[in-house]
């Protein structure tokens, strides 16, 4: 484009004012710059401390303060008043600032005017976006009833919308990755053994032995949890780590059990049968609190250390050595329940075996054992009421997965949607979850999404799943909103007993047009005919409603520097009626084994290795992949491969590699090999969450390899319907 007049000449002609419509008349938007008092050159804005931050770079949720200069967050630190994480936060916590100001973050509501999977985005107003969401969801409900909607929620902000869709709208097709692809199996295994979910409530700081089965302490950094673990080691606790890989925890262990993947339950049964047969268990505790111990004893006796050894490839002597160590230090043993638990499709039994091991050691309510802190109580609840529609979940209709909680196992929703059997599922709401990387068999997830009439996503980042959205809504991040109430006790039970209460508060206001979950869901509810059911008008009201019965409020917490402290209670001891269900008749009645039972996993096909995945200290799966600081610290996920295997393949550390699985699925990206004797020959390991495909994640795209892409063999836990993700087999290929 050529300008044939000079700028000076143009400006001298005064022709602008003479134009048919003056320039000033069409420049009508509200000014973003205005006069303000002069600031003397050289002045700096004060740094203020914003309190009430609660981290969500991972789900441990440490307490934060933010240093804020001129409404800009410049530094995150642990809240000095915290008796949980204290002043410490991890690398991911520090890097929260780079999430806050990530240029790839979602900024405005957008509509996809292209196709799902290959979107063309158009910024639209919140009103347009919400109107369309309401209209499309209403259309689905009208045509197919509420069960025509599927929802995939994750994170603190997803609780309010999840309850809306599940309770008030009335769809049972809600599936949380944190349950069905993570810890749900563990929770229900322990619930069926001791009547409560375990969390990670083991008093490691005061243990004589810490026993971790596949626990990646130090690779999964949850600050107060890690403090307990390290304090225990400082105090002289012995550490036993069972893992096919020489993990960070194994490197600190007194005993590393290099187990064959998938046979963990056998190892546990081998130890327990040996301990029971030789009277090396806590007889007093078992007598006082054990249920079905004789049946349990009878059921596991076949698994002598010798028989177990053949299956799990752990030497008999080592099985006995670990069992003796645990027995000698009972009851002050931390039998860690684990966290990411969905491994092989036989995991409920593994969870049961861990809980039963804690039972035969009597490791409940004692220093070092399983101890739930006695935190503050008396909080209010904010909930969506039950609506008119109620539909039985698919697994209930089918009479399967009887240990699955409310919600529906993910595979069943996906299969139902794809086949439209037993009914169509035509709208999908994704809230803070990236099902592309949480659910195995990605091609089926894509198929499910493509057959939908409508897909809406709410997120902070343009993750892989957002490529399939019709409407994409930008959510305020954890640093920009109120919501989660965090409460608990001091992390070390040997310290003075204290309780704390804190509520997430924004450290800075939300930029652009990002909104919190209460605003978004309430506006949807208004459009879906549920205005009268709205429980709170604002997110601040939600938090204050929860705090009020405890005599607290947002204002009071701010006045107390973000954390309310009060005297605590001694957490030790167990009630007289506390029970350990060594043999659970209810499970037996449901058609499951009453005692922990080993279910064999598929063997590794010749020429392949089992694909294992886990954590890294610098990333929380996929959600931190686009963070420039964390990417700089760990730009990809190295593939751990045994040195002998690598030698045969001609691989050395640092070589670029990719993978193909036994079903012929090839990884779409690559990483580098980490050649080590510290892993068995029959498996490879890499951290989960890498290898994003969305190019909107300009930092994370193609960084490392995505293990989920290679999970094409379905393994489902028969009790809970949760996915097992370690039954896939791969070959390494030089990239």
């Amino acid at each position, binding site marked *: 484009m050529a300008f044939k007049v000079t700028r000076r000449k143009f400006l001298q002609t005064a022709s602008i004012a003479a134009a048919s419509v003056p320039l000033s008349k069409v420049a009508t938007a509200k000014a973003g710059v205005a006069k303000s008092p002069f600031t003397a050159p050289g002045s700096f804005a004060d740094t203020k401390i914003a309190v009430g931050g609660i981290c969500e770079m991972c789900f441990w949720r440490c307490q934060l303060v933010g240093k804020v200069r001129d409404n800009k967050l410049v530094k995150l630190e642990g809240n000095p008043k915290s008796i949980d994480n204290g002043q410490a936060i991890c690398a991911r916590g520090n890097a929260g600032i780079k999430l806050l100001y990530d240029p790839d973050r979602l900024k*405005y509501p957008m509509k996809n005017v292209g196709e799902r999977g290959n979107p063309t985005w158009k910024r639209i107003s919140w009103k347009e976006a919400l109107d369309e969401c309401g209209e499309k969801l209403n259309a689905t409900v009208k045509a197919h009833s509420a069960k025509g909607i599927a929802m995939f929620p994750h994170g603190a902000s997803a609780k309010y919308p999840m309850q809306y869709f599940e309770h008030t709208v009335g769809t049972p097709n809600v599936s949380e990755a944190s349950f069905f692809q993570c810890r749900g199996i563990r929770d229900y295994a322990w619930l069926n053994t001791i009547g409560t979910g375990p969390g990670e409530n083991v008093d490691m700081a005061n243990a004589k032995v810490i026993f971790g089965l596949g626990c990646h302490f130090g690779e999964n950094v949850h600050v107060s949890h890690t403090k307990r673990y390290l304090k225990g080691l400082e105090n002289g606790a012995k550490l036993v780590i069972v893992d096919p890989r020489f993990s960070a925890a194994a490197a600190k262990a007194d005993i590393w059990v290099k187990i064959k993947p998938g046979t963990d339950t056998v190892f546990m049964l081998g130890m327990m049968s040996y301990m029971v047969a030789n009277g090396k268990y806590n007889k007093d505790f078992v007598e006082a609190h054990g249920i079905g111990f004789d049946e349990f004893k009878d059921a596991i006796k076949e698994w002598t250390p010798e028989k177990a050894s053949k299956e799990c490839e752990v030497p008999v002597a080592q099985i006995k050595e670990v069992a003796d160590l645990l027995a000698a230090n009972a009851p002050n043993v931390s039998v860690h329940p684990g966290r990411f638990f969905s491994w092989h499709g036989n995991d409920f039994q593994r969870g049961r075996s861990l809980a039963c091991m804690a039972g035969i050691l009597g490791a409940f309510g004692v220093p070092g054992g399983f101890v739930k802190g006695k935190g503050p109580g008396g909080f209010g609840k904010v909930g969506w009421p039950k609506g008119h529609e109620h539909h039985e979940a698919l697994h209930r209709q089918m009479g399967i997965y009887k240990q699955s909680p409310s919600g529906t196992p993910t595979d069943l929703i996906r299969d139902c949607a794809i086949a439209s059997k037993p009914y169509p599922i035509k709208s999908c709401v994704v809230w803070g979850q990236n099902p592309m990387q949480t659910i195995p068999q990605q091609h089926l997830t894509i198929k499910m999404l493509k057959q939908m009439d409508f897909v809406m996503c709410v997120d902070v980042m343009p993750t892989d799943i957002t490529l399939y959205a019709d409407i994409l809504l930008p959510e305020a991040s954890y640093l920009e909103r109120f919501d989660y109430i965090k409460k608990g006790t001091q992390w070390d039970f040997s310290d003075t007993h204290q309780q704390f209460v804190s509520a997430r508060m924004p450290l800075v206001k939300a930029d652009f047009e990002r909104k919190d979950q209460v605003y978004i869901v309430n506006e949807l509810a208004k459009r879906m005919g549920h205005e009268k059911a709205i429980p709170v008008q604002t997110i601040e009201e939600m938090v204050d409603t929860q705090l009020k019965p405890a005599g607290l409020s947002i204002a009071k917490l701010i006045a107390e520097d973000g954390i309310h402290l009060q005297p605590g209670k001694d957490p030790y001891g167990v009630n007289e009626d506390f029970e350990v269900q060594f043999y659970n008749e209810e499970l037996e009645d449901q058609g499951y084994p009453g005692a922990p039972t080993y279910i064999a996993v598929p063997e590794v096909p010749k020429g392949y290795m089992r694909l294992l995945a886990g954590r890294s200290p610098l990333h929380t799966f996929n959600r931190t992949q686009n963070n420039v600081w964390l990417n700089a610290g760990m730009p990809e996920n190295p593939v751990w491969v045994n040195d002998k295997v690598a030698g045969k393949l001609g691989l050395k550390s640092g070589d670029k590699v990719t993978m193909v699985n036994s079903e012929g699925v090839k990884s779409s990206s690559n990483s580098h090999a980490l050649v080590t004797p510290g892993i068995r020959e029959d498996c490879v390991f890499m951290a989960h969450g890498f290898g994003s495909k969305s190019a909107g994640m300009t930092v994370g795209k193609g960084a490392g390899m995505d293990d989920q892409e290679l999970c094409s063999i379905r393994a489902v836990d028969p009790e809970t319907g949760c996915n097992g993700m370690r039954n896939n087999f791969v070959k390494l290929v030089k990239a």
Partner: protein
Amino acid sequence: MSQESEQLSQVFNFLAQATRYPQAEWFNADFLAVLHSFLAQLEVEADEVDLPLEVTPQFLEDVQVDYTRLFINGHPKVIAPPYGSMYIDGSLNDTTADVTRKFYREHGFDTTTNEFPDHLTTELEFLSLQFKEDEAVAHEFIEKLFLPWFVTFRDIVLAEAKTGYIQVVIELIDFFTKKEIEFDQAVA
């Protein structure tokens, strides 16, 4: 205030408006008529610009899609975030944003919305106001804080924009902010 300063103030106010997200309330026939008139006064040949005379719904959507892709969130990725910090510091709301805000304040202005101070529209608005106050300061801002990033941004947008409208607006901004010496050479 000189006539020239008044002219520049109006020009930058118009350009600031033109860099906002196009919406039907203002991105209408009147606006396009002014733009065409403006181009005519600059003696730009009509056949050199790909710009319709009317705002049809399709044209509006095309510009909205292009704006979103270039400046907000795009697939496969956002092309040219319109923030100085992105080109000087490599990230959003970084040092350049702080320095820019400081410049505003030291000259008696500040931002009033939650947009970052180094956003293209905000900087053009500041220039519009500053040309009324002190033309030398406005030129200082262009020299020190605007051009160092705009030149890179301009090249990316001109290479990637799919709609004539966005290309025209960027070329107009370039025309009115170009250093005098470069400008004279370009026109010559």
